[in-house]
C-alpha cells in the first residue's frame, strides 16, 4: 500500500506568501508532526490537503487519490480538527453530529456516543458556549467517529489541559496502531511530537527544511555551545543557525560528526537538539 499522504514539489502562491516546492510523504500507520514558526506555511499545507485551498503546482495525493479530482472520496477518508474549531455556535453538539453524520459513508454513531461520554461532552449544550478545549474535543469526536484513514490536526492541543492533552496523544498513538490510519499533526507545542511523532516535517518561510523520521532528526541535529572566541568564518559554516552571546555561542547543526571533528580540542559542549532548538536556531545568524 502506498503512502497515505504524498506531496511532491507542491507550491502555493498567495499575495505576500508562497509555499515553495514542498515534498514529503506519510506512510500508513504513522504520525507525522508538522512543525514551524507562525506563518511558516503549516496551515497552508493543511488547507491544501483538505481542498480548502488549491495547489498552484506540484502533485498532492491523499489515500492515493488527487483531492482536486476525487474531492468527495478523499474527504470521506479524512478527519479534520481545526486549531479553533468553528462550527455553528447556535447548535447543540447533538445537532451538529446529526448534521455531520449523513456526509460520511463510515459514520459510526455508537463510536461517536462512546467518544462523547469518554470526552465528557455536553451534547445538549450550544457549541458557542463551550470552552475552546471542549470545542476541540467535539471536533475530535466528529473526526474519529467516521473512522478516518488520515487525521489532520491543526494545532489541536493548544487549547487543551495537560491531562486531556496526554490522553489525546495516547489515543492518537492507539489510533494509528492498526497500521492503516495515520495522523498529520501540525503544532508548535513540540513536546507533544517528541513523545509520539514517527516523522517530523519542518517548514520555515514556506520552504521545507527537512522531513525525516524522529530518530533521524534527533540523531542528526545537535546544539553546540562554546566560547565566542572559537567562532570564525570556518566554524560558522558548520551551523545552520548560530546565536552569539557575550560569553557563549550556541550553534545548531545537522552534522554532529563534522562539528565534533572540526571543533576538536576546543572547549565546547555538544547536546542533542530538541525540536524547539531546531525551530529557534534555524536561520539565526546573530
Amino acid at each position, binding site marked *: 500500500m502506498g503512502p497515505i499522504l504524498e506531496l511532491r514539489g507542491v507550491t502555493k502562491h498567495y499575495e505576500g506568501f508562497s509555499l515553495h516546492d514542498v515534498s514529503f510523504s506519510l506512510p500508513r500507520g504513522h504520525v507525522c508532526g508538522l512543525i514551524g514558526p507562525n506563518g511558516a506555511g503549516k496551515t497552508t499545507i493543511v*488547507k491544501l490537503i483538505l481542498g*480548502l485551498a*488549491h495547489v498552484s503546482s506540484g502533485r498532492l495525493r491523499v489515500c492515493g487519490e488527487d483531492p482536486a479530482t476525487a474531492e468527495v472520496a478523499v474527504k470521506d477518508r479524512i478527519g*479534520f480538527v481545526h486549531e479553533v474549531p*468553528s462550527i*455553528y455556535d447556535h*447548535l447543540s453538539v447533538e445537532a451538529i453530529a*446529526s448534521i455531520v453524520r449523513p*456526509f*460520511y459513508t463510515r459514520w459510526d454513531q455508537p463510536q461517536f456516543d462512546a467518544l462523547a461520554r469518554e470526552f465528557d461532552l455536553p451534547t445538549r449544550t450550544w457549541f458557542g458556549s463551550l470552552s475552546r478545549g471542549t470545542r476541540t474535543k467535539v471536533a475530535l469526536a466528529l473526526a474519529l467517529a467516521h473512522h478516518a484513514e488520515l487525521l489532520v490536526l491543526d494545532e489541536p492541543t493548544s487549547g487543551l489541559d495537560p491531562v486531556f492533552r496526554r490522553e489525546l496523544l495516547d489515543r492518537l498513538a492507539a489510533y494509528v496502531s492498526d497500521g492503516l490510519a495515520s495522523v498529520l499533526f501540525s503544532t508548535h507545542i513540540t513536546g507533544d511530537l517528541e513523545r509520539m511523532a514517527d516523522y517530523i516535517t519542518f517548514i520555515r518561510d514556506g520552504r521545507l527544511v527537512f522531513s525525516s523520521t524522529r530518530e533521524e532528526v534527533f540523531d542528526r541535529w545537535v546544539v553546540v555551545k562554546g566560547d565566542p572566541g572559537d567562532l570564525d568564518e570556518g566554524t560558522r559554516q558548520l551551523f545552520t543557525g548560530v546565536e552569539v552571546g557575550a560569553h557563549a555561542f550556541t550553534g545548531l547543526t545537522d552534522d554532529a560528526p563534522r562539528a565534533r571533528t572540526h571543533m576538536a580540542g576546543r572547549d565546547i559542549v555538544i547536546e542533542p537538539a530538541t525540536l524547539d532548538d531546531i525551530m529557534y536556531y534555524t536561520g539565526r545568524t546573530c
Partner: protein
Amino acid sequence: MLNLFIKDIKVGAIFLWAIVPLYVVTALQVSRVGAGFFWVNVTCASLLLVAVSMLDWKNEAEPFVHSLPVTRAMVVRARYLTVVMVGLVSLVIGSAIGAARGISLMMRAEPWPRWMAGDVGLAFVLVFAFIASVYLPCYFRWGFGKGNVAAALVLAAAGIVTDIVGPAVTGAGAPGGGLFYEGVPRGLVSQGVAHVASRYGLAPAGVLVLGLAAVLLWVSAQVAARGYRRQEF
C-alpha cells in the same frame, strides 16, 4: 447535495423561525393597504434568503463545511435548493395571509382583492427568482460582505431600469393608462405577468413564469459555481 440542503435547513431553522413571525405580522398589517403587500412579501423572502447565507459567514463555518465530503459545486447547488424552498415558504405565507385578508374583506361584503390572485403569485415567483439569481452568484463570488454590496448595486440598477422601461412598455402613466392593471402591484414584472395571464390564460402564464424562473436560477447557479470554484478558505 441533499445532505447540504438539510444542513442549511437545520442550521437556519432557528433564524427562519425568528423571521417568520415578524414576516407574518408585517405582512398582515401591510395587507390592509393593498398591493404594497406584494413587495413586503418579496422583501421578507429576500431577508430569509440573506439569513440562510449569513449563517456560514457569521459562524466562520466555511472551513468546517468544506472539510466535509462535499465539493464547492455541491454547496452551490444545495444553496439553490434551499432558496427554492425559501421561495415556496414565502409564497405559502404570503398566500395564506392574502387569503385571510381576502376572506375578511368578503365577509364585509367587499370585493376580493385583485392583488391576491394567481398572476400576482406568479409575479412573486419571478421577482424572487431574479433576486436570488443575482444575490447568490455575488455571495459565492465575493462572500457575505462584498457580495451583499455587489448584489444590492445590481438589484438597485435593475430597479431603476425597470422603473424607466416599465412605463414605456406598459404605457402606464401615459394618457389612457396603457396596459396598466389596476390593483396589481406596480412594477414591470407584476404588470407584465398580469398582462400575459389576461391575454393567454393563467396556466400558460404559469408555465412561462416557472420556466423563466428555472432558467434564471439555472444560469445563475452555473455562474455561482464558476465563481465559487476558485474560492479558498
